[in-house]
């Protein structure tokens, strides 16, 4: 359905843990909105996607970014800093997901202008619920650019 594709909401998921990524994608599939989730597994890939480099020349501009902090090659803080310093990318909401309640890492993310930080619960059901709450708030209530 080409119409659905045109109105689909693009979400960029930056997550190196396959288990966490699977769980999040499954939780997002329950959305009543047409979502297109793209998964990239490290910070370099995330930036290549956003700058439409290499394999990502045709990549759409995501409507929302879900960014893990602990990533190989380039970590979440570095990716966040680049996004929020770029005049065109900075307006994309970035939701930080972090496994640990590391206050210092969370403060640093807010200082770098993360739109919000959410801790990943260890319990799978709670984690899925958190993902659904992110979907509900950011895609239904919040106005995005």
């Amino acid at each position, binding site marked *: 359905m080409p119409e659905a594709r045109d109105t689909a909401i693009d979400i960029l998921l930056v997550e190196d843990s396959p288990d966490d990524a699977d769980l999040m994608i499954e939780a997002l599939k329950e959305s009543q909105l047409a979502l297109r989730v793209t998964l990239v597994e490290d910070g370099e890939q995330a930036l290549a996607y956003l700058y439409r480099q290499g394999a990502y020349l045709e990549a759409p501009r995501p409507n929302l970014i879900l960014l893990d902090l602990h990533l190989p090659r380039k970590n979440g803080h570095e990716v966040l800093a680049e996004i*929020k310093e770029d005049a065109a990318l900075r*307006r994309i*909401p970035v939701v930080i997901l972090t496994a640990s309640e590391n206050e210092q890492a969370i*403060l640093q993310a*807010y*200082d770098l*202008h993360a739109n919000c930080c959410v*801790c990943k619960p260890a319990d799978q059901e709670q984690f899925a619920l958190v993902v659904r709450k992110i979907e509900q708030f950011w895609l239904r209530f919040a*106005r995005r650019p």
Partner: protein
Amino acid sequence: MNLMSNGARPIEILLVEDSIDEAELTMETLREGRVSNKVHWAQDGEEALDFLRRQGRHGGAPRPDLILLDLHLPRKGGHEVLAEIKSHPQWKRIPVVIMTASTDEKDILAAYDRHANCYVTKPIELDKFMEAVRSIEDFWLSIVHLPAA
């Protein structure tokens, strides 16, 4: 259910809103919420900055954990207040939720460009207005890990 751990103390919210009716409705809705919170009300942009600077009658003001900011404010507009907060070394980490009647795309872009943490429009109908406030409570006070200091 509270999925995050902001500790036992109530969440301090700074509400910046010039409409008395809307401020009262927002405060009442937040008071009914499950998460313990304390709302401080500033009626214009200058007063919001006084609160953050702990000036005048806001000498004993706590540092807010979350700011709900209207855009159309007397004395100093919401965009200006937002820009001051987000360029201040200590205040910039405080999440700012824009709550406004404006659905103008220019306002939305300008707010995100100035690092608003999110943008929510206030519906005119009472039920929808309360639903919007509850959605903020349900996400920002329950799911989000707010900065600790």
